[in-house]
């Protein structure tokens, strides 16, 4: 078991580069959204992970009632995961992501896509899977 290691990468939407990672949370910035991820037990493991995502707009206001989807991609092998994580709104800009499945060691990209009205943005986390 290894400690959670998340680092921000640019979202491809012109997002500002910055970093934010510690044992329990990580932050990724898109152009118009900021996503804070809190993984259960502060760990990302090979296998099945769950996370709570806190979504906020550029001004820091929680984005509630948005369409949020999460996808996984492993660049080193050119494929995604066997299942798409399921997202359950929790209210207050919080979304529960379940079944984040990483089946190989190495770097995975977890892309969070947020859509609400005119807001349409992504934030990308790098996951280092042991």
């Amino acid at each position, binding site marked *: 078991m290894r400690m959670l290691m998340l680092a921000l990468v640019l979202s491809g939407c012109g997002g500002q580069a910055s970093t934010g990672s510690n044992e329990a949370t990580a932050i990724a910035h898109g152009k118009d959204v900021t996503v804070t991820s809190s993984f259960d037990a502060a760990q990302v493991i090979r296998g*099945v992970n769950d996370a709570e995502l806190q979504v906020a707009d550029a001004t820091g206001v929680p984005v509630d009632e948005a369409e949020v989807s999460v996808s996984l991609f492993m660049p080193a092998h050119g494929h995604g995961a066997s299942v798409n994580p399921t997202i359950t709104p929790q209210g207050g800009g919080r979304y529960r992501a379940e079944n984040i499945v990483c*089946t190989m060691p*190495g770097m995975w990209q977890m892309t969070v896509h947020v859509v609400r009205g005119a807001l349409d943005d992504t934030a990308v986390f790098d996951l280092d899977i042991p």
Partner: protein
Amino acid sequence: MTRLFSISIFLSALAACVALERSAAAMSCCGSTLAQPDRLGPCEHLALQVGASSAVSLGSFLSDGAYAGNPAQVFEGEERLRLSAAVRLSPAWQLSAGAAWVQGVRSYGQVRSTAGWFSDVLVGARFDPPTWTSWAFTAMVGLPSGRTMAESHDLLGADVTGQGAASLRAGAVYQRDWSLNYIVVGAGLTAVAPERGTGVQATVNGDLFGALGHTFRNRVNLAVSLSTAAAPPLTRQGEALPGSSWLHSTASLSSAWPLSYRSTLLASLFATPPTGLLARNWPLQVGVMVNLRWAWMGD
């Protein structure tokens, strides 16, 4: 006696090459390397082969060559049941086809899964030039019948058996024997079509292999072999995916025992050499394989 000896040497080489075939499919979801097609020995007109293999992953060589052992409570294994056939069309030309049922076993902590599906179907041809008797030229087509990661029905992807891309390999083999020994070396290039569902573009990878064998007086054979394959970085939308090139190697110890006039038992132990010089972006696997082969000879 000469014919029996030739067949014996052939079986030894076959045992080594079958082991290499198994190793080429070590990571069916990600890297595509095609091995040698099944082949027929001197005077053989038809051969059927059924094989079972089992392999487990002990860890992985990451994209920088660093080795990472599997964490505790992680288990990744794969069983294969393969059926193949080869037929002689003429003294110089042979055709073969084969496919496998692949059963994945994965365990990550409390979450465990076993699931399977058919592998990619492989169809091959071999040409033995009448004038260059030490040489052979081979071609192999991989049809993407396997299940990709995106098509998986299993939470842990245990049923992933292909990368969703057709492939074509062209290669050459040189074989020479002396006394009771033989050596076989070969090389090939594999063109891999764009993968369905991932946007990964076409690519070309290459492979080398070699085997050294000895035939004992009782026609039992022993061979050691080493194969290495490498691929450039994958590209998607014209951009190279970081760290996506791979290199993998497999060493094997193989043997063949004639059981009867028609049947032979082939067995191999195989493993990824434990060095980052020979493997990148690839698991370290160890495994065992047993094949039964029946052959029908002409006059």
